[in-house]
Structures are given as structure tokens and as C-alpha cells.
């Protein structure tokens, strides 16, 4: 075999600061980690870009889920308070409850429903709700407000029986009303969330479709999205502990950071797993 002309076998690293890999025993460079000998710096950059895009994609997935969840929560809340108010008015009409008793129940019932529905809202939505720290009015304050609205210049004590019934009915009806301008946003949230989810899935499908090894890419996409979801869920679970109540900005940051960290860790883990000799063989590479 003819001797080769003395020259470096190859080089790696950025131009100008590249490490030359030579044959023979004169090479005093530290051994590299196992991997392709002539690994290009550009490949590392591309890998980082792919990871960033995967993290972004998992964030889009998390926000899609958040919008869908909150739209559902608001819809459920509006329906339940309206139903509760209707039921109480019906009970008063049928004589099952006195108007005063029903007004007292109505004043508390809406807050109970709010607490129940909050359990199914997203962490960001919940933090926003807590941030207002707006405790409800007492029954006396609610009655006073209703009197001012219906009979300006009078007090509850000055009203006759029929007028008092009107005031109690107003409190009960008010407990079933919600802001139409707020509720009108719900279909938009729902559409936005679903649209975002569709785009996220479409990007994943396209990435898998374009990949040389579709099985490998499919596993990676799945792991990244699942990791992002788990990271977001972990961040949500720890939101109360880390941010305290009513801190929507902190919860949003935690949600984003948790989702990105989860996605990146899952991507890294998937990469490690898919580099195992047995897995590589199973993938047919």
C-alpha cells in the first residue's frame, strides 16, 4: 500500500480555531467523546436550532391547551351561575324558599361555583383571577346596591313588602348575570386554541414526513411534545409554591420556562436513547 502524503486527516471546530486531527502518535490532543470523527460545528448549530424550534412548538401546544381549557371553564361557569339563579327564582315562585333566604343563598352560591370551576382552569387563568383579590360583597352590601338601583334615595327598611321582594329578586338575578363582553371572547379563545393545536400537530407531521428516518423523528417529536406538556404541568403544580397566589406574570414565566425545560430535556433524552446501538439497529440505520 502506498504511503499517504503527510497531512491532517481532518479538522473540526470553527474555522481559524479548528483542531487538526492527525495520524500517528504525535497527536497530543485530548480524545473526543465518541461520535463522528469529523463533526462539523454547523451541525451543532443546526441541532441547537432544532431544539429551540421543538421547545417553541411545545410552548405553542401548551398555550393551545390553556386557551381551550379556559374557554371551556368560562362557558361552564356562565351556564352554571345562570342555572343556579333560575333555580332559586323558581324555588321562590313555588314557595320552597323565601325571597330573602334565596337572595342569601344566591349571594354565596356564585362564589362557590366560581371556586369549583377554578379547579379546571389553567394556572395562568387562575392566577389572573386571584390577582384581582376582589372579595365579594356581603349580602347587606348587595342588598344596599340593589336598593340604590331600583329605589334611589330609599333604604331597605323604608320599602314595603312587595318592593323588598323586588330587591331580593334583583340580588338573585344579579347572581346569574355575567359580562357579555367577556363571554363573547370565549369562542375566539376556543378557535385560537384549536387553531394553535392544529398548527402544532401539522408542523410535527411535516417534520416527520421530511425526515429520512420517519420512525426516529416520530419518536423525537412525541417525546418533545410530551416533555413540554409534563414540564408545563410540573410548573403549574408548583406555581402556588413558587409564585404564591395571584401572580399571573410569575405563573406565566414559570409555565413557559417549565414547558421549555421539559421539551429540551425530553429531546435530549430521546436523542440519547435513539443513539443506543440496539435502538439504532432497531430503527434500521
Amino acid at each position, binding site marked *: 500500500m502506498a504511503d499517504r502524503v503527510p497531512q491532517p486527516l481532518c479538522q473540526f471546530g470553527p474555522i481559524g480555531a479548528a483542531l487538526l486531527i492527525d495520524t500517528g502518535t504525535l497527536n497530543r490532543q485530548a480524545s473526543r467523546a465518541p461520535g463522528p470523527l469529523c463533526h462539523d460545528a454547523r451541525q451543532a448549530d443546526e441541532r441547537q436550532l432544532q431544539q429551540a424550534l421543538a421547545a417553541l412548538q411545545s410552548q405553542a401546544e401548551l398555550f393551545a391547551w390553556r386557551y381551550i381549557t379556559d374557554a371551556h371553564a368560562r362557558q361552564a361557569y356562565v351556564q352554571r351561575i345562570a342555572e343556579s339563579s333560575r333555580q332559586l327564582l323558581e324555588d321562590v315562585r313555588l314557595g320552597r324558599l323565601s325571597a330573602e333566604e334565596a337572595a342569601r343563598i344566591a349571594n354565596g352560591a356564585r362564589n362557590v361555583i366560581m371556586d369549583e370551576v377554578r379547579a379546571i*382552569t389553567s394556572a395562568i387563568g387562575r392566577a389572573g383571577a386571584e390577582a384581582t383579590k*376582589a372579595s*365579594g*360583597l356581603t349580602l347587606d352590601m348587595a342588598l344596599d346596591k340593589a336598593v340604590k338601583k331600583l329605589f334611589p334615595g330609599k333604604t331597605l327598611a323604608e320599602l314595603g313588602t312587595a318592593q323588598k321582594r323586588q330587591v331580593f329578586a334583583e340580588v338573585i338575578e344579579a347572581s346569574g348575570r355575567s*359580562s357579555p363582553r367577556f363571554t363573547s371572547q370565549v369562542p375566539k379563545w376556543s378557535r385560537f386554541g384549536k387553531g394553535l393545536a392544529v398548527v402544532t400537530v401539522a408542523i410535527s407531521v411535516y417534520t416527520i414526513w421530511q425526515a429520512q428516518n420517519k420512525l426516529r423523528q416520530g419518536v423525537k417529536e412525541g417525546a418533545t411534545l410530551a416533555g413540554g406538556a409534563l414540564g408545563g404541568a410540573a410548573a403549574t403544580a408548583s406555581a402556588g409554591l413558587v409564585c404564591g397566589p395571584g401572580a399571573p406574570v410569575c405563573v406565566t414565566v414559570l409555565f413557559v420556562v417549565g414547558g421549555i425545560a421539559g421539551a429540551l430535556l425530553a429531546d435530549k433524552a430521546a436523542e440519547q436513547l435513539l443513539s443506543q446501538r440496539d435502538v439504532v439497529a432497531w430503527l434500521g440505520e
Partner: protein
Amino acid sequence: MSDVSAPSANDAAKDPAGHPIHHPVDDGHAPSPARREAWLALSELFLDTALDAADIAAIARRLRATGLPAGALQQLYQHEVAPVCWRNLQAVPGGAWAGFEPAWLVNAVQQHLARPPLLHAWKPLQHWRVTRWTARTRDDWLRVKALLV
């Protein structure tokens, strides 16, 4: 400290650049009764409820009773009440619906006045913020305003 209990032209004052002039005498101190009542009345625009004609009329009556001029009330609505109450109409599944707790509201407005948001003197940003804060209550405010004249 000057007396702020009586409504004055200063309530609607703006600086030469058109920015609303806050009331430093109120910052950290008890607001005048008229001002406090106006905050409470205006905050009702931000409740998670549907305001019918009687509600709007009741708010207008309370505001008229304060004696504050319409320009001053507009400033209070946009720059003092809206910044602290607007989130109530973003809260999921819903925010306060019957009324804001008065002590909380007064404290929140005073804190906002004492520590205005970042870059609040920058007019475009302030304009954007006010637009955002009042997006879901502007129509109702216009209904109230129509009854003030």
C-alpha cells in the same frame, strides 16, 4: 397639604404634553370622599355582570352626586380605576360580580398612583395601555357619560 375634598378644575387637568396630572396629595393618603365615591362607582363598570339601563343610571347618579366634572371622571376612569380593575374582566372563570371590596379598591388605586407602571409618561405606551384597560368597558362608560350631561 391642599384640600382635595372639593372638586376642582385640577381634576381634569393635563400637562402641556397632554398627560393626565395625577394628584400627588392623594398618593399614600386618604382620598377625598368625592374621589373615593367616584372610584367605587366607576369600578362597577368592571364587574363580571351585564349592566342594564337601571345599572347604568345608578352609576351615573352616584357619579353626579360626587360633583366632579365629566372631564375629571373620564380621567379617573381611564387612569385610576381602569388600571386596577381591568383584570377582573380577564379573570377565568370569572371575577368579582357584585362589587369590589371598598378598602381593597381604594388601596389598589392609591398604590397605582404612588407607583405608576413603567414608562407611563411615554404617550404612545400610555395610550395603548388605556385602550387595553378599557376595552371591555368603554361602551358602558359611554352610556354612563351620556347621562352625566
